[in-house]
């Protein structure tokens, strides 16, 4: 049972790594820079975020 839970959690790791970097490397530095346009520019990454969420959901359900 424990192995099953761990396996499911690990299946989320690639999407989790991406999303954490999206936050730590993109959103937070954009906010700290104080330039609103940099935060707004983050919208260009929405397709990638959507793909990551879809892949996380699919690999979790496998």
């Amino acid at each position, binding site marked *: 049972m424990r192995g099953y839970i761990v*396996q499911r959690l*690990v*299946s989320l*790791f*690639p*999407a*989790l*790594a*991406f999303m*954490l*970097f*999206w936050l*730590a*490397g*993109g959103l937070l*530095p*954009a906010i*700290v*820079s104080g*330039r*609103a*346009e*940099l935060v*707004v*520019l*983050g919208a*260009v*990454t929405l*397709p*990638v975020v959507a*793909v*990551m969420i*879809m*892949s996380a959901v*699919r*690999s979790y359900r496998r």
Partner: protein
Amino acid sequence: MKTNSAPENRTAWMLLALMAFSVIASSVIHHCFPSLLQVRSEAVAFSRYPVMFLLDLIPIVLAWLCFEHARRTMGFYQASVFLGGSFFFTGLVENIWVLFGRFMIGTVSLVADGASGTYYYTRGFFWWIETPILICLAWFFLAYSCVYAVHVIAPKLPAVLRAALGGILAVIFDLWLDPVQVSAPWKSWVWLSNDHIRIFSIPLSNFIGWFLMVFVFAWFFERLPRFRERFSPGVSAFLFYLSLLGLAFGIFLVQIAYGLITMRLIDTTMNLTCGGI
């Protein structure tokens, strides 16, 4: 979880040890003997040693997440070859550009406005030659997560298309990452390139490079099992890295050709901008 043979595990550990040794040696040279590689000193924020060390922990943790996933799905050997390959491959391409800009740029007339060079990195606690390991590791987990996401969503696509889509996803993310990281107060790297075509003030050649690196690496990585069927683990990894070495120089030549052609054909700088970026 996939298990590996003893020779595969030995090769994997050797790769990781080589990575660790080269990072330690490079970091010592960068911080203690900066004149050796003419390290540029730049007064940027967050460049105190404890802060840089903490900032480097972030990509290390994120890379571990992807490495652990790769280890459980592909085995320790393939996961290590992926990590080592992406680390050395991207590091090599980045280092070629940084050092080419620093030492050789005048010879091909790619001189920027008053300052010669391509680009350089301003901060990092751990380095691989003149590239912070943040860049190498970020490339590893971004390439891994993008290619894996495509693999999960479209498993029936041919490998070449999966690799291409992974490259496109990575480039889309980089469209945002680069302008953020070069903005004040971060200035994680400084562009000196005189590329006339820019997207959000970042040279187009950067995005071409990102796409080519992720695409080519992911595509060739799919061939590793074929090498493994015919050769020992060590020879397979060596052949894979040898292919990457050739590809790295291929990408370098493509970008040189691109730079020379656009500089001849386009006189003014064109920038696709959004909100003045």
